[in-house]
């Protein structure tokens, strides 16, 4: 080959490469977030919205989403739904009708999520639910809805087994029992402890805005329980832990709250929290985190100057699941194809939570993902991951499929 011919061949090759790359047009994919950015639910919703924005920046920096010949850079619009059903409907209608958004993420709280879930099946959009734990969200077989967080009773069953193994028989419950998924959690705990002769001796209620729980605790103290179980949002639960110590209740304290160290320490001291158990999905804590989890914690803390809440990766993982599904479907325009791809998705390698796939898939036939459950204990100012809780995702998935 002469020198000229070689140069021309190189030029042709370069031209082909340039032309080829220019065929992969760069487009913008707007994803919406509907979440509680203000009000009581903001302890969960705001970190979720932050997590989605962070994931979007990471994906964009790594080249975006490849869907067939197109490359998408992600743009995030977040609207506050105040964890209120009407506000959530308005926010999602705005995202779909006005902003033309096809993929909606976030959803920390059950009431607002259920309101949107009731009509999302009729829309050409895909809804990815995060922290909202009400079981019925994934019992309706909505084809364009998936959820990253397992339902509360899936975790409650594992928690009940753990408490039963600890040997406490008389458990007093104090919590937001008027909230459906907390009640479902407690019912599952009760079923498990009954198997070993245990019982729930009290079911005292606090509302999510209550701060003085001494009347309920005084009543519980009079019943002389072996342990208390606290289920509810972070702030009221923190007040319960603090006031139990102030009332001299020196018994094991179990909980289901998913609050970060920072969130608890706004209300109570580390000494007052010492020894408290949180029995919940194996969410983010540094000691339980995988390599992804450690990186997520560091990046989030650097970006937002605050630690991420343990449940915030549910939303972070949503965007990586969506990315993988769009790439698998080869399109971002056809939401039906993306929804189908989500149902057939293996767990993407970038996710933070430790998912337990069912039949090799991240989401089961109901659109539900399962994480492992863990027992975390407050030790010297930190949540320490102590052990995995026994959880059978496949059996639960089959049970979920039988519900309407």
């Amino acid at each position: 080959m002469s020198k000229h011919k070689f140069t021309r061949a190189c030029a042709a090759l370069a031209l082909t490469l340039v032309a080829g790359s220019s065929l992969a047009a760069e487009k913008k994919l707007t994803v919406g977030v509907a979440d509680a950015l203000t009000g009581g639910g903001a302890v969960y919703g705001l970190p979720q919205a932050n997590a989605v924005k962070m994931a979007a920046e990471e994906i964009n920096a790594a080249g975006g989403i490849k869907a067939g010949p197109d490359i998408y850079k992600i743009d995030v619009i977040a609207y506050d739904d105040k964890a209120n059903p009407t506000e959530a409907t308005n926010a999602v209608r705005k995202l779909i009708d006005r902003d033309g958004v096809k993929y909606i993420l976030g959803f920390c709280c059950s009431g607002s999520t259920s309101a949107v879930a009731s009509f999302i099946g009729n829309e050409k959009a895909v809804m990815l639910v995060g922290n909202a734990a009400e079981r019925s969200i994934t019992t309706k077989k909505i084809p364009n809805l998936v959820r990253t967080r397992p339902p509360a009773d899936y975790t409650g069953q594992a928690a009940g087994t753990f408490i039963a193994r600890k040997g406490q028989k008389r458990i007093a419950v104090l919590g937001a029992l008027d909230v459906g998924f907390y009640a479902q959690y407690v019912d599952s705990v009760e079923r498990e402890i009954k198997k070993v002769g245990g019982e729930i001796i009290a079911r005292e209620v606090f509302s999510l805005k209550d701060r003085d729980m001494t009347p309920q605790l005084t009543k519980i103290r009079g019943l002389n329980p072996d342990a208390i179980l606290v289920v509810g949002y972070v702030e009221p639960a923190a007040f319960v832990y603090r006031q139990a110590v102030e009332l001299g209740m020196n018994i094991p304290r179990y909980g289901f709250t998913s609050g970060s160290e920072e969130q608890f320490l706004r209300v109570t001291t580390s000494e007052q929290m010492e020894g408290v158990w949180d029995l919940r999905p194996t969410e983010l804590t540094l000691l339980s985190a995988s390599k992804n989890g450690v990186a997520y914690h560091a990046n989030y803390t650097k970006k937002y100057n605050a630690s991420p809440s343990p449940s915030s990766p549910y939303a972070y993982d949503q965007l990586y699941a969506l990315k993988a599904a769009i790439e698998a479907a080869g399109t971002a325009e056809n939401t039906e194809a993306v929804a189908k791809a989500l149902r057939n998705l293996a767990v993407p390698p970038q996710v933070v939570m430790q998912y337990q796939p069912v039949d090799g898939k991240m989401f089961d036939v109901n659109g539900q993902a399962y994480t492992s459950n863990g027992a975390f204990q407050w030790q010297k100012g930190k949540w320490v991951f102590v052990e995995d809780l026994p959880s059978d995702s496949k059996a639960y998935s089959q049970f979920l499929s039988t519900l309407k």
Partner: protein
Amino acid sequence: MNRILALLPWLLALALLAVLPQVLTVKYYLHLSILALIWVIVAQGQNLIQGFTGYVSIVQAGFMGIGAYGSTLMGLNFQWPLWATMIMAPLITALFALATGYPSLRVKGHYFAIVTLAFNLIIVIVLVNYSELTKGEAGISNIPKPWGGNREAFYYLALVLAASLTLLAALIARSRVGEILLAIRQNEDLVAALGIAAWKYKLFAFVISAMYAGLGGALYAHFQGFINPEIFGVAQSLDAILAVILGGSGTIAGPAIGAFLVVFLPELLRFADSFRLILYGLILVLATIFMPIGIVGIAKAAFARIIRREVRHGG
């Protein structure tokens, strides 16, 4: 001639609202308009007891809840047709209002407000805890929607009902009953001294007000397709009061304008992000301080001032 002039703004507003779905390209605004029309019905009811009779009731959202759950549960449990359950909703609400109104109206002023607030709390507690029937906090999904959820058709239904019930409120206000209600607001003791059984008229206003809310609740349920107790809490009752105050208490146009404000304002303020509710609260505080007679009151005063000036210049 004067009557036609007085009707002109109403006819214009109605015409504007009638063509709205045809000119709105973004259906999100149609969604908000439907919610606002539902709130027009609720606020007109609130105005009957608050604006005309002078009794501030804090149970309007609770009554909405009774209408919403009543209609939904009759449809789901007895398979009654949607239209039948929607007609039944205000009637069921009226029964509850009769039962609660009789004891509530034995007290006046702040005491009445507190009693009705307690009723709203009780309604929410029952809705949350009687979960075998109401499905508790998780709420009821997939409530049937008329015309398969066609929003444009639902808009016209809401518009016809809101317009009809506004007309009914105006007829009540202009009737002898309306005059007695106004007299009760001015001086209840004097009304009693004239030998008029004021309690009957107060109960009438309270029950009719609840029926408006019950119908509004049923419309809400069949429009959104989802209800849970949170939607019918005290905060929403305060929104009904706010709609009446912002628009103009004791006027017919006021609650209609106020209803659109309480629905659209928080949505239009979304640009303010997490400061949205602070800004909303600030606007409400300023509006209440500087416009105690509401938008309609201010507009009327301004109009009267212009007329006076014209007459002075003309003479």
